[in-house]
């Protein structure tokens, strides 16, 4: 198409050779891959040369034998799917990753200890074997759990895998035949028609009105016509190449296959994308960091107490058993499963809001995002040409471009408007497809090109049925648009049956239309065109063009009856009627308007400290207009060019630092060094990149990442996919997105709406906060789990808490409450703060450890120990006698151990008391974890401000209590888990400590709120 501004559009399309010249240290291979892209030379060859090159015949096609030979040589015409990790590797990664290694070590030590016991003792106690099995089962179950969670989210993708067109029409040995597209080989003569998907990269040899939609490759939303002529050196621009996996919109064409499969342009981009290593997601890095901390603590404590116990004179076997205990106590076994569940819950919540997350860890990434590089077409805009402005009666009128027609309207009573509407409706070949009356006008499908569809919809909305209007004005003759005339005209009967004149309506490039006009319609009255009006026309045309809109001019002429009587034979090929001295009616301009929700979403992103950069393949003027429209370039901010224009000085004299905004053209980007790009990214807050190639999108993303940003990229085309892959989080469009882009992305916006990203950011930030709370909650109970062992070793007291009970806490009572924290609502407006700095704001930091381990955990440990001492004392073992009793306490042959009252206990009798202590310690941890859960709900606010509206959390409180009671009171638990029923009073031992936790933390948070930035915040705000 080539109306109006499309001319300049074309000119600007001298696309660079993909930054070939810029020497980038990073990714030599990437460059090589992309350099190959320009290796297409067929477009510059003549058809004959091309045939020779591919050993084919322009009429007969390949012979079957040759086709088979080529198929063998080149392989099937299909994209190699991106390499996938084998399932068993994924499974093993889950089985041996994270804490699992530590737990496997514990289990192995258990088995070793049991084997040693089995060899040295007659009747080995089964405890270690039992514990070893339990630990192994725990590891396997949590491993399987995360494996299945992962598998579930990756299954979503399977529906997107159908990429290659199914059938292709080829000519071989002179015969047309339908074959599977995978069997198409280079040199095949292929016929395509409207609606087909292109089976391979083709050199067009003949075409009839063929138009292809290259949007997935180049990002241009407009269908491109195709012909056998070479129109550009750039293979992406030339008209005689059609590309694999793009769509033929209308017409037919015949072409020679020049590349198949992975060697196609599309295939190369896909390969480039899948070849990029993406690195770990921020949350994965955080979890790794956290696992390192915990493992470090576990290994450090384990080894030092191992050595200590050897020094204290314990046997090797005992030391090993202590080591197991310390490992089990230190590792929060359920935590990774909790994190997985929390992420899954958020992923589900986001899916409900149209954000489909492919990779679970990507849930949080949007929350950390500090830069969004957004594609324009289809993401920020509706990807639908719409009439935006009209100029008639010497005045610019604004049309409603919103999706739901909620925008402003204009005065429709003017006679000029009626004339303009009539021209737009009549001189228009677009029609609504049948059977769509129930849909709103804007949603209906139209047969016809984008501009005409836009006019059709506009008129249908404003003036009612276009079909009726066309019926009233029967078309007599028509000259369709062609690029030499740059206009389209048609001749119609008038509405008035008594008027025998014909109506000639014409539309086209405004300057061409104006040239043909001698009068202009103002307020329904024809007036002669004078210089003043021409000036007005020019300024209106410039203004609309400056908005990045495509402008069309409209004129009409009531043909004099004397010259063109009824029945006059209009000859459209050899024009036998006047096309001059017409009456100019007006201008209409069209744009792909921004989506309604986008400006708001961009604003929210901005207030959330996220820099929104537009990266588009489209023209700079259009890009800038849309950027201004959606607020990517905010009101009042100027580019260097704007400043230059305002001050009327050359661009070179403007200090680039004065301009916050900038629009950068792909051809300029090509010549820039990495430093310069960094400089631009750092010094401009509002950036638009226009006319960028896939490779440049990649460079932009890399530039942002070099600056320490966490980058989200949104896009729908194949040309976006390398950038999508390289980004920390790639966001593809679910409706308009190409399969390659969906494959490369981590997240898919099901409604193609940029505003959904804001939801993603919000959810991502919320889950990061909530994971902190969840981890703080879970880690706290580690201290009451570790300290019993330490005291057991150092003070030789009977063991206060056993390994099985520790597992009951970590995998039982702590789970639901920890997960429930994922449902916690935000404490403050999380969209008003800056994105987290990945170098500084860690998921688990020393402040969280200080609070969880050093403060709350210690109170919890005291609560547990108190319960332990209470039970022993009430059974006759006063605290004073406990220190040092471990040796005889754990001696099976001492069956007359004396308590503080002189009573004598058999081994089994006192062990029951000990296990009752374990149970009480366990219950006490549950009791203090109540308070901890409530305390962990908030990091800054008081719980009284936050409220207790989290129903899952309340359920969690009851659930953990019920589970604890179940474990304690169910008959048979004494045998199964060695847990014994508690006397009711023992439940209350830890209550004072629970209360203390609540009061202490409320006071801490009160001080924290009162003294922002004070010592308490610096040391305890996690």
């Amino acid at each position, binding site marked *: 198409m080539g109306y109006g501004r499309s001319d300049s559009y074309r000119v600007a399309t001298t696309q660079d050779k993909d930054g070939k010249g810029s020497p980038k240290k990073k990714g030599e291979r990437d460059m090589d891959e992309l350099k190959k892209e320009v290796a297409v030379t067929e477009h510059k060859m003549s058809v004959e040369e091309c045939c020779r090159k591919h050993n084919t015949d322009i009429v007969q096609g390949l012979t079957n034998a040759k086709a088979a030979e080529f198929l063998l040589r080149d392989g099937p015409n299909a994209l190699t799917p991106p390499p996938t990790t084998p399932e068993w590797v994924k499974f093993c990664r889950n089985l041996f990753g994270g804490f699992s290694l530590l737990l496997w070590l514990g289990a192995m030590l258990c088995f070793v200890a049991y084997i040693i016991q089995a060899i040295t003792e007659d009747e080995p106690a089964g405890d270690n074997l039992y514990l070893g099995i339990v630990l192994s089962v725990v590891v396997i179950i949590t491993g399987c759990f995360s494996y299945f969670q992962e598998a579930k989210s990756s299954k979503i993708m399977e529906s997107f895998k159908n990429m290659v067109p199914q059938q292709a029409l080829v000519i071989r040995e002179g015969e047309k035949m339908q074959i599977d597209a995978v069997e198409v080989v280079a040199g095949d003569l292929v016929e395509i028609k409207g609606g087909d998907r292109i089976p391979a990269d083709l050199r067009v040899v003949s075409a009839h009105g063929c138009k292809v939609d290259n949007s997935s490759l180049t990002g241009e939303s407009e269908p491109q016509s195709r012909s056998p002529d070479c129109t550009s050196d750039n293979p992406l621009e030339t008209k005689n190449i059609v590309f694999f996996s793009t769509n033929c919109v209308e017409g037919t064409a015949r072409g020679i296959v020049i590349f198949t499969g992975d060697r196609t342009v599309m295939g190369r981009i896909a390969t480039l994308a899948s070849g990029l290593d993406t690195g770990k997601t921020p949350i994965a890095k955080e979890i790794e960091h956290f696992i390192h901390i915990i493992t470090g603590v576990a290994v450090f404590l384990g080894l030092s107490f191992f050595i200590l116990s050897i020094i204290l004179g314990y046997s090797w076997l005992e030391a090993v058993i202590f080591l197991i205990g310390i490992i089990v106590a230190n590792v929060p076994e359920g935590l990774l499963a909790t994190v997985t569940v929390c992420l899954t819950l958020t992923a589900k919540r986001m899916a409900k809001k149209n954000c489909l997350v492919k990779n679970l860890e990507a849930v949080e990434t949007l929350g950390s995002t500090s830069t969004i590089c957004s594609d324009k077409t289809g993401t920020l805009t509706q990807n639908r040409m719409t009439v935006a402005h009209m100029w008639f009666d010497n005045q610019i009128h604004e049309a409603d471009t919103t999706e739901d027609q909620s925008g402003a309207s204009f005065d429709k009573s003017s006679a000029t408007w009626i004339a303009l509407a009539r021209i737009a409706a009549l001189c228009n070949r677009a029609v609504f497809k049948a059977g769509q009356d129930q849909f709103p006008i804007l949603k209906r499908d139209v047969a016809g090109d984008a501009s005409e569809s836009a006019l059709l919809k506009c008129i249908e909305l404003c003036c009612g049925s276009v079909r009726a209007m066309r019926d009233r004005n029967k078309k007599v003759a028509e000259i369709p648009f062609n690029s030499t005339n740059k206009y389209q005209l048609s001749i119609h009967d008038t509405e008035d049956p008594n008027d025998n004149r014909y109506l000639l309506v014409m539309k086209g490039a405004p300057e061409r239309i104006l040239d043909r006009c001698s009068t202009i319609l103002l307020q329904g009255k024809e007036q002669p065109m004078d210089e003043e009006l021409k000036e007005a026309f020019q300024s209106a045309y410039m203004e609309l063009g400056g908005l990045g809109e495509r402008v069309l001019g409209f004129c009409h002429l009531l043909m004099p009856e004397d010259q063109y009587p009824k029945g006059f034979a209009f000859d459209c090929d050899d024009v036998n009627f006047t096309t001059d001295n017409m009456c100019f009616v007006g201008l209409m301009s069209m744009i792909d308007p921004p989506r309604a929700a986008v400006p708001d979403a961009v604003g929210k992103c901005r207030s959330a400290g996220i820099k929104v950069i537009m990266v588009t393949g489209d023209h700079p003027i259009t890009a800038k207009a849309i950027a201004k429209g959606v607020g990517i370039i905010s009101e009042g901010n100027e580019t260097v060019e704007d400043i230059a224009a305002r001050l009327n000085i050359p661009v070179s004299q403007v200090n680039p630092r004065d301009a916050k905004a900038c629009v950068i053209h792909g051809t300029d980007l090509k010549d820039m060094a990495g430093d310069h790009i960094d400089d631009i990214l750092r010094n401009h807050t509002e950036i638009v990149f226009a006319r960028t190639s896939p490779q440049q999108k990649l460079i932009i993303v890399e530039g942002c990442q070099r600056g320490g940003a966490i980058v989200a990229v949104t896009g729908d085309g194949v040309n976006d996919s390398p950038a999508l892959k390289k980004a920390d989080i790639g966001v593809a469009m679910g409706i308009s997105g190409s399969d390659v882009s969906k494959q490369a992305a981590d997240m898919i916006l099901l409604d193609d709406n940029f505003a959904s990203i804001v939801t993603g950011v919000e959810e991502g930030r919320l889950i990061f906060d909530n994971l902190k709370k969840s981890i703080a909650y879970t880690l706290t109970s580690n201290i009451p789990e570790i300290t019993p062992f330490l005291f057991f070793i150092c003070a030789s007291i009977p063991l206060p808490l056993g390994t099985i009970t520790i597992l009951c806490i970590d995998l039982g009572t702590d789970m639901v409450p920890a997960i429930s924290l994922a449902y916690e609502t935000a404490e403050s407006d999380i969209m008003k703060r800056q994105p987290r700095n990945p170098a500084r704001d860690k998921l688990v930091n020393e402040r969280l450890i200080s609070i969880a381990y050093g403060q709350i955990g*210690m109170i919890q440990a*005291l609560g547990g120990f*108190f319960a332990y001492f209470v039970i022993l004392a*009430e059974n006759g073992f006063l605290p004073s006698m406990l220190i040092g009793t471990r040796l005889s306490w754990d001696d099976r042959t001492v069956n007359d151990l004396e308590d503080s009252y002189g009573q004598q206990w058999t081994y089994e009798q006192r062990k029951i008391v000990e296990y009752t202590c374990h149970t009480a310690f366990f219950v006490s941890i549950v009791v203090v974890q109540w308070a901890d859960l409530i305390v962990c709900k908030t990091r800054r606010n008081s719980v009284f401000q936050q409220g207790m509206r989290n129903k899952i959390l309340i359920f969690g409180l009851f659930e953990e209590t019920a589970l604890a009671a179940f474990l304690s009171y169910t008959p048979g638990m004494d045998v199964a888990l060695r847990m014994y029923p508690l006397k009711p009073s023992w439940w209350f031992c830890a209550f004072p400590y629970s209360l203390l936790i609540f009061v202490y933390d409320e006071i801490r948070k009160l001080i924290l709120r009162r003294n922002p930035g004070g010592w308490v915040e610096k040391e305890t705000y996690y």
Partner: protein
Amino acid sequence: MAKEDDERKPKSAPWTEFFWNPRTHEVMGRTASSWGLIILFYLVFYTFLAGMFVLTMYVMLCTIDEYKPTYQDRLAIPGLMIRPKGELMEIIYNIEDTESWDKYIQKLDNFLAPYNDSVQAQKNDVCTPDSFFYQEDSGEVRNNPKRSCQFNRTMLGSCSGLGSESDVRTYGYGTGQPCIFIKLNRVIGMLPGKGQAPYVSCGPKNQDTDKIGELEYFPTNGSYNFMYYPFYGIRAQVNYSQPLVAVKFTNITYNTDVNVECKIISDTITEYSERDKFAGRVSFRLRINKNI
């Protein structure tokens, strides 16, 4: 800009800077005053916690009775225990090898010393046999110290270890007829029977029926007389003498393991715990080697 970059990249600095950063004077990421504050905070915090813990412990200990534990439900069936205990409840010795059994003799001598008649006469009372020796407190007024009944070593007859004959003095160990002393675990307030005094009955365990030979019990019947019960706890009943039953294996088979199980026969202790092998019973292994 370049300066800022330098500032931003201390990560590449040597890791030793973590321990001492000469530029900022930080030790492990904190300055001296920062360390001082955080240590002071934890000092105060932990002192407070310790205080709170001591307080709750004090309150708890106040609720604990000095003379009787709050709960005794885990002691429903008193345990039985043997003396000498041996290693892993095994008594293994060689008759010819004096040293192999001398350690048992010494242990028993020490164990039985408080039962010497002279000591008993000095500390304890003579009580009426065959009836419980109640010494209840009258309301709030403690009836302390409580008296205990004499259990004289001579009651153990040939297992008393008193006398001139080496057989008696070595508790039969030297002659291959060892005495094993069985005591019933002390439980405050326990009355081990109703009508008839509880007694110890030993027998072979497993298939060792013919190896065990004949047994002799001291005192007669191997019973624990009612007068030693109830026990009031060592705090109230300082000189309590735990009654003993001695079992003498008169013609045990030599050079073989003999598994023995002794049970308390009582009309109140009727059931034995499946899991607790020492509640109301005790089993041990006896092996007396004799060079042929």
